[in-house]
């Protein structure tokens, strides 16, 4: 009897915990609708600080920050939401809008990058595992069913190509960890030709611009790429976005 009570108590705590998140989310939504954007942002941030790293939370927080006038935080969280849900058209539209408002260029992406960014790392892995499992099943069936072996093997080629594509997607996404993305936090930042304080400025970066690191940092500097140009930026002027 005691055991059942303990289990029941545990389930109740779990559901209470879930209700707590629902409450906070609902409060944040209500604050946003009533025009209290700062309060709404603080509540969404509470959920994020509790460890819930979801696209909806980042997106809503970004909306609240945008409405408060904090374009930097808005772009940062829109971008994080995009990494979690790259196909969401609302996230893409709002990110583009926020970048335009900030006067920053949208991160350029080649066709291959756009294709590989359609799925997150987790989704690529799921595709790979699914294709792999089906391929194994197909091969097992081909061992025993001689009559339809040819068709099974043809299907196996398609699955093999899927595994290859998913592997490329995984590799591509992992490459992003080698070239992390940063956001410019300083009001005005200069990208210089060399990682030195008195180096000649190559180009200027507006606040909230998204830049991609091109090589490992050098002391307090990092080389970044922005709008097809490269330059060195001080680490104190930027903040990591992903990963």
């Amino acid at each position, binding site marked *: 009897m005691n055991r059942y009570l303990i289990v029941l108590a545990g389930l109740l705590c779990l559901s209470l915990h*879930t209700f707590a*998140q*629902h409450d906070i*989310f*609902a409060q944040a*939504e209500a604050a*946003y609708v009533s025009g209290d954007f700062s309060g709404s942002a603080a509540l969404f941030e509470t959920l994020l600080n*509790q*460890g*819930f*790293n*979801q*696209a*909806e*939370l980042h*997106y*809503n927080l970004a*909306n609240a920050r*945008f*409405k408060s006038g904090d374009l930097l935080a808005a772009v940062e969280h829109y971008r994080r939401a995009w*990494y*979690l849900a790259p196909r969401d058209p*609302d996230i893409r*539209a*709002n990110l583009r*809008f*926020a970048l335009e408002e900030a006067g920053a260029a949208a991160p350029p992406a080649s066709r291959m990058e756009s294709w590989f960014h359609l799925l997150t*790392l987790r989704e690529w*892995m799921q595709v790979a595992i699914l294709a*792999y*499992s089906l391929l*194994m099943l197909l*091969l*097992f069936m081909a*061992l*025993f069913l001689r009559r339809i072996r040819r068709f099974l093997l043809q299907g196996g080629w398609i699955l093999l190509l899927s595994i290859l594509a998913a592997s490329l997607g*995984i590799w591509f996404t*992992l490459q992003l960890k080698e070239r992390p993305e940063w956001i410019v936090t300083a009001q005005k930042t200069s990208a210089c030709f060399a990682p030195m304080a008195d180096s*000649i400025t190559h180009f200027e970066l507006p606040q909230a611009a998204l830049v991609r690191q091109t090589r490992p940092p050098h002391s307090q500097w990092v080389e970044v790429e922005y709008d097809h140009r490269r330059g060195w930026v001080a680490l104190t002027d930027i903040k990591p976005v*992903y*990963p």
Partner: protein
Amino acid sequence: MAGCFQVRRLRVTGSLLLAFSSFAGEVHIRIEPQLISLLDRAVMTVEFIDTKANRIEFPPIDGLLIQYQGQRSETRIVNFKSSSKVIHRYLITPKRSGDFTIGPVTAAFKGGRKKLQAALRVIKPVGDQEVQQIEKRLYARVESENQEPYVQEPFPIKLHIFVLDGVQTDGRISISGGLPESGLDGDLKWKIDAQTQREINGLLFNVTTLSATVKTLTAGTFTFQPQVQVNLIVPRQNRRFYGFSDKFFGDLFGRQESRPIMLDCNRLAVAVQPVPLQGRPVDFTGGVGVLDFKVEVGPQSVQVGEPITIRMQISGEGNLDKIIPPAWATNTAYKLYDVHAVEAEQPGTIEFEQVLIPVTAALTNLPSISFSYFNTLSHDFLTLKHGPFPVTIKQTAQPSALIVSSTPGAHRAGTHLVGRDIVHLKPMPTTWKNQPPGGRIFSPQTIALIGTPPTLLALTALLLARRNARTNHTVRRRRQRAHRQASAQLQRARKYLKKKEPALFYEALWKAITAYFSQRLNLAPGEISAACVKRHFPHRAEPIEALFQAVEYRRFGTAEKGRPAEMKKLLHEIVDLLKQCERSDR
């Protein structure tokens, strides 16, 4: 002696110093001459001494044209000391008089960096006939028909460029500067209106007229004095020799050159008036100019719930792009939707569309609508009013649900968006994921999971392959069958032994032997003999021979068949022999 030694020491020290100094590079900048007239040119050199460096890119300077000529190298040996120079040459052509500072620019070279700066003064020679003549032959004039426009009221300004007939230019005109730095709405876009000829003081001039429309954002005095540059084609000047590489002056045959000339232009001051606050109507739309307002309402006979489209057109000369659409009065008898700007078919016109849906058949008139703007001709606010508009609203026969679309008007191609904003919040997530974005991709469990299926697959394939190989191979098949068939016969032999039937017993033994060896050796049963079997099992030749003889003797012999103990012993020996042959690799 001591004196000679000292001199020698001095020489060595001096040479060492000179040698070391040669490793330290140096750079100098020089302009010659530093004072020139407007028709003249100067040469700037940047010398890198005992070092190397690429040419320096000088930033553009207003009023000067700096052209890179090339580089040359020099090496000198003086008192056994060699020094080298790399000299970069630039040609400076003035476009106007004044004091100019070139630089500072940073020259980076092997050995260091240095900031370079030089000064040049360009004067307009007083009494220089050529300069005076140029001013009389080429000049510009700017004017405006409207010297006191209002804020937001577009007004035209015209720029006339006069070139004396016979004076050659290359046809290119550039206009830079001389315009108000702030307060204008957008950039000035010049367009060529006309190219005519005009007689002025008995001289014929070719006149190019350019015009631009200006709109100001604030009131105040705006000054226009555009800096117009044309390229004059003149005979080659023999004032100085600038080198063979100079594309303008390097012509040995003394032909023509193109020289940029900045034209004299008058100053135009335009006093922009503010739109008055006094008497401004409440529904002032921000329009300034001379405007017309038209309204169309249709269809005028509809049923309850059906849309009526209102089209408003504002045309004329004014700040059309800044006008806010007039607002309709709200009423409980109808539902009003957002107004949309629509692409107008005619230039100088803007159109708005708004949809209205009557909710009651009691509505007989749509209220009047007014458009207020500031008329720049009468210098007063003007309100243009239309309506009321009679409409006939019929009640539907069976009251049905009023379907109200959020966008009742079709989104016509070319609809101009009035505003933009971010997309609203996302709803609450259905599941809450409490996990960091990173994490290991391939855990040991994952690797084990990935590796297991192909391992199993390979094993299965291997086993199947072996099984198939065995079953498909005739020799192997028969080999496998040998023991089974022999066992069956040996079982019979045991049975006959028990039943004490020696003839059948020996027959069964013989069948066991022939069945086994025929399958084992892939031969026909009739081919089996002691000699044949001994050939294949030479290590067991003696027992094979003995057993074959014993069985044959007992089979065909008419003498006693043997006692049961002997029969049993024979059976055991045959069983042992067959087992040994079975275990044998052969």
